[in-house]
């Protein structure tokens, strides 16, 4: 049985430490830990009070008028005692119920609230892991972990824990009661519990595995349904509807089959659990009949035990049920902790500079300034992949406008990522001024650069959000000014859809420029979009380079000739090495010839 993404290797290796994982899960629930003791007391109170009270009252009422009774009964009459007892019993039951619900609420709500920290830890870890991690893990899976697994932990995880705990407490209280009444009947609880455990050990793994398979199968069926919804025109055109339908129904049939099997497992388990508890109940009744017949028990006590045993049936059932989910909670928690435990990006960054996170705080975080100098710098994306930049040496002079050109795979965008230390550093060095960038704490290094990305993605929200970023305390005037500078006329609170698809590429590009204007960074990295911009955006861009960005070092990864005309330096890369460099007057004619050659050829 092979399933893609079904169980990842790291999960297999960690399969056996359920208890450890659950322990860690509980320890992360801080708010819950604070109120755990009173909650447990409430649970015990709710579980113990009604049967014990009933017993106590029953015994008191039972011996009324009996020979050898030591209790003083003549204070109140029978007509008052019975209704008073009954109404007190009802009250007690209600109070117990209230306590139980209160304890559950406290446990589950506090638990749910506490799980926020798990989510934020995951996000923290995601924000500090190497970017290549995201290439290896499809976004769907990551979203599933960050939203799906967290969702399960938040709700079902906490609920399962609470219900299991509550079930255990109830079994304990009733067990003690029965033990007090008749030790042998009480001891019988042990084999019954063992039978349950045995059954559970057979059933629970199968059920949880069936649930996993079901989720995978349902996922597959959904993929096929998506084919139908989104790809039906193409399937129709090429007359492949029947094959698609067959595949859909196969996937759907599989998911329904596993669903049916799961239900079969459940009704099977329910049957056996029911039979076990019926058996237990009958045995206890036998003891009661025996006890009553030989006068060893009072009728009231028998009634109390019957009630308790009835209740125990449900409790057992619930307990067994919840326990089968504990394993699943553990596996979700394990996945969440896997995300939390991802290594920090700097720990796997370089062969040359082995930097421990501890040292980083002492590293200089002053403002870097000066030429950017690549010194025989070699990098790859991962430790074991091919080198993209290969012993590259070049200098980007301070305050100049530099255009980088080269074919696909020449290493242009890798250059940008290298400056951000997002790649694997094989050898050589990059210096800004007199400092190696590897001596600077990575966050403060990144703060030196302003970026205009190739694909000007806007985030869902407002223009304001997309503009301000980290500077949340800027006034509206400054923001509007920045927009005006780049030639945009937008409302700050205008809605932006996911990706900014409601704005043109040009507008998005300009918005990224407005961001730069606000941020005032010394080093600007621009990745030109491949498709040509409209004239307005282009003109605005050129104007900004001459005005606001006059004194900045601007590095542009260029795709078009005319945008480079006013630059100070053009650098051409080939295969990760410097091919040639020079001022535009020198380089441009060469490039034009080359371009024309290619066009004619």
């Amino acid at each position, binding site marked *: 049985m092979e399933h893609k993404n079904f169980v990842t290797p790291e999960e297999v290796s960690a399969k056996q430490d359920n208890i450890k994982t659950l322990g860690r899960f509980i320890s992360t629930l801080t708010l819950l830990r604070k109120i755990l003791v009173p909650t447990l007391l409430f649970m015990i109170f709710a579980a113990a009070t009604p049967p014990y009270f009933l017993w106590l009252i029953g015994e008191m009422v039972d011996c009324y008028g009996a020979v050898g009774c030591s209790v003083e009964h003549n204070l109140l009459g029978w007509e008052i005692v019975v209704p008073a007892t009954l109404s007190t019993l009802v009250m007690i039951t209600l109070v117990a119920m209230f306590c139980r619900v209160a304890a559950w*609420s406290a446990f589950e709500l506090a638990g749910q609230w506490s799980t926020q920290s798990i989510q934020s830890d995951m996000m923290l870890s995601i*924000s500090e892991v190497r970017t290549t991690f995201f290439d290896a893990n*499809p976004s769907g899976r990551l979203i599933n972990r960050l*939203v799906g697994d967290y969702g399960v932990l938040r709700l079902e995880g906490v609920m399962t824990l609470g219900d299991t705990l509550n079930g255990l407490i109830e079994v304990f209280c009733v067990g003690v009661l029965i033990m007090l009444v008749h030790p042998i009947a009480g001891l019988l609880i042990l084999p019954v519990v063992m039978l349950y455990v045995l059954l559970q050990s057979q059933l629970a793994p199968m059920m949880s595995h069936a649930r996993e398979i079901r989720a995978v199968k349902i996922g597959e069926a959904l993929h096929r349904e998506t*084919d139908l919804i989104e790809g*039906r*025109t193409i399937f129709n055109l090429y007359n492949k509807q029947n094959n698609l339908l067959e*595949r859909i129904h196969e996937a759907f049939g599989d998911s*329904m089959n596993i669903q049916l099997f799961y239900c079969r497992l459940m009704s099977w388990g329910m049957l056996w659990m*029911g039979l076990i508890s019926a058996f237990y109940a009958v045995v206890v009744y036998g003891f009661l009949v025996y006890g009553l017949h030989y006068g060893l028990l009072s009728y009231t006590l028998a009634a109390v035990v019957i009630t308790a045993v009835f209740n125990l049936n449900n409790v057992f059932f619930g307990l067994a049920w919840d326990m089968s989910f504990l394993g699943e909670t553990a596996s979700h928690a394990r996945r969440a902790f896997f995300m939390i435990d991802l290594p920090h990006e700097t720990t796997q960054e370089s062969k040359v500079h082995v930097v421990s996170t501890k040292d980083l705080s002492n590293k200089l975080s002053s403002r870097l300034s000066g030429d950017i100098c690549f010194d025989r710098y070699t990098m790859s994306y991962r430790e074991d992949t091919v080198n993209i930049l290969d012993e590259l040496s070049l200098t980007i002079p301070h305050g100049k406008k530099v255009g980088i050109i080269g074919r696909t795979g020449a290493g242009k965008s890798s250059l940008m990522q290298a400056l951000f230390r997002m790649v694997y550093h094989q050898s050589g060095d990059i210096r800004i001024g007199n400092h190696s960038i590897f001596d600077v704490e990575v966050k403060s290094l990144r703060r030196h650069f302003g970026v205009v990305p190739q694909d000007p993605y806007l985030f869902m929200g407002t223009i304001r959000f997309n503009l301000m970023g980290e500077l949340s305390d800027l006034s509206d005037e400054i923001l509007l000014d920045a927009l005006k500078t780049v030639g945009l006329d937008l409302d700050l609170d205008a809605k932006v859809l996911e990706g900014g698809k409601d704005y043109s590429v040009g507008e998005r590009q300009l918005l990224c420029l407005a961001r730069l204007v606000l941020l005032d960074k010394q080093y600007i990295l621009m990745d030109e979009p491949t498709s040509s911009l409209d004239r307005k955006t282009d003109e605005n861009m050129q104007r900004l380079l001459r005005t606001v960005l006059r004194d900045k070092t601007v590095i542009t990864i260029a795709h078009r000739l005319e945008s480079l005309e006013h630059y100070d330096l053009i650098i051409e890369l080939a295969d990760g090495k410097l091919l040639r460099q020079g001022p535009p007057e020198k380089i441009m004619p060469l490039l034009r010839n080359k371009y024309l050659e290619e066009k004619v050829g």
Partner: protein
Amino acid sequence: MFDIAVFANPAKLKRDFLATTEVKTQAMGPELQSEFDQIREENPSVLMTENFWLDFVRTYKQHLSLLVFGRGIMTVLVLITVFTSEWILDETNTIEAAIGFLIFYTVVQIILKLVNAWTALYQSQLFVNTRTFVTLRVNTKLLRMGQLSSNDFSTGNLKTLISSDVYRIAELFHGIARNGLPCILALIILGPVIVYYMGLPGVIAIVVGFGAMPLSFWLAKYIHSQEELIKQEEDTLSTIIGEWVINVRLLRFLGWEALMRTRVGSHVRQLVIESTKQHGVNLINFGVSVSWWLFPIITLIGANQMLGGEQDLVKLFASIWMLNHITLYIRWLPDIFISYASASACVKRLNALFLHRDIIDDLMPESEDLGDMPRPVALHFKHVSFAYEGEKGHALSDINLNLDLQSRVSLIGRVGAGKSTLLKLICAEIKPTAGQIMVEMDDGKQVDLWHKNIYHLYRGQIGYMPQEAYLSNTSLAVNVSLDTFHTEVDVMRAIRMAELEADIGHWAAGAAEEVGETGVNLSGGQKQRVNLARALYSGRPYLVLDDPLSAVDMDTEATLMQTLLSNSEGFLLCSHRLSELSKTDRILVLEAGHIIEDGAPQSLMEKPDSEFNRQLKAGEELKPEQEED
């Protein structure tokens, strides 16, 4: 009838379990299978009549009656237990009677558990049947629908329909089977007995049993409304985290991680707050329902006392027991009402889908005007206009165009000029709102394209590559062939022709490699080439290509163009990049829904003021290329 699986031993169950993933049992059931075959025969009236509920009951009457039967047996068993215990206890009060009763009780318990397990199977079968019933119909309908002009059925809406709507309807049936039915049966079978035993107090107690309903209903409604809110919050959270995960490099460039963390954190908090509210109310609702069973009993005893009714303790306790049996199910009734409300909304949506017009409905009857072995050779547009539904103005207006299906034509124009619309019209994906498209056959006859037989004949000649084509979450080979039954050789040939061979060279599984959801494992250029490979694999003589090369680099573009020129009889290529287009036979320039220029590339280039020339100059690019990591 009786499912032996209920008695199965663990070892057998385990074997079954291991086999489950391989065994292909009939989840569909024979009655559905035959009906489904009928639907496939394009018989829309079978899809669904006006009354969904009736249809469902009719289809599954056997299942449903067995379910009612099982639940009925369980209720009757309760009644039998009451009568028997009364009889035993009435007779005598000896130890033998007590033991006899104990044995009887044991037997009844075992039968009850068995029947319960048996009905549970039918219950789950019902759950599965409901989903099958709806899903099969939706699937078939979707396939018949083709291109949708209506926005009511966006991708998102359809996905909701197919997953959560179907599930909700199934859930309603499940709820009815599990709680509604037993409740009604208990009321019908046990109710009269209680009233017979206790008289008026019995009636009062049963009424009190329903006393918590308004409160529960109100609480349950709140819980359901919160559910929507929580789902929205979860969707927002997924979107935000998705944005993060997809743009992780951009975020590092911007240094926005902390900002995004705060953002995600605030949404998580919002989600937890809403969820906590819902959960809290849920617990209160639970508290109310689990303590409410006390009140009917108290009422019964109290009313009996006050009205001076039945003094027989056996009858009183029997009534309490039966009363409990009814009230056990009452607490779930509000949920059923609420899920009925949401399910009927879902059914409404489903019906709207089923009533939606299919593209097949637009076809004219078969044209008689056909020779032997006809073969389309040209397409003639006669005053063709097209307007999108709900949009003002025409996307295309009054197009007159003769297209030779053996020539290589390129189409250019600005964004929004109507290029994609024209291509869709040529592929017969959409029907013109005015004018006529005629197909010319090799015997010189011209027939309207939208005749049933002509439509299918003509479409069989066309390979279409849409601008943003869909990639399925399967292997590359299935994506290319759109079929699980494909020959390796043909797929590899198409892959080679689309210049994908080098790309898959270092994939572990080669063409069997999974492309991921919507092709996440591929770059933009690779996705385009997969789509091209799809068109090439089909072997269709005429290709309609909507901007196929925008994301591939220049060298590849030139090679692909060469492949197209040498491998297809004719094509229509729409592109933003002009450099390669001069190799085609004819260029069409489209602007604002009109064809403004039409001619050979050479003749257009010679005209200095032609739009083609103007665009050629404006778009002069330096090494257009796509970054591919």
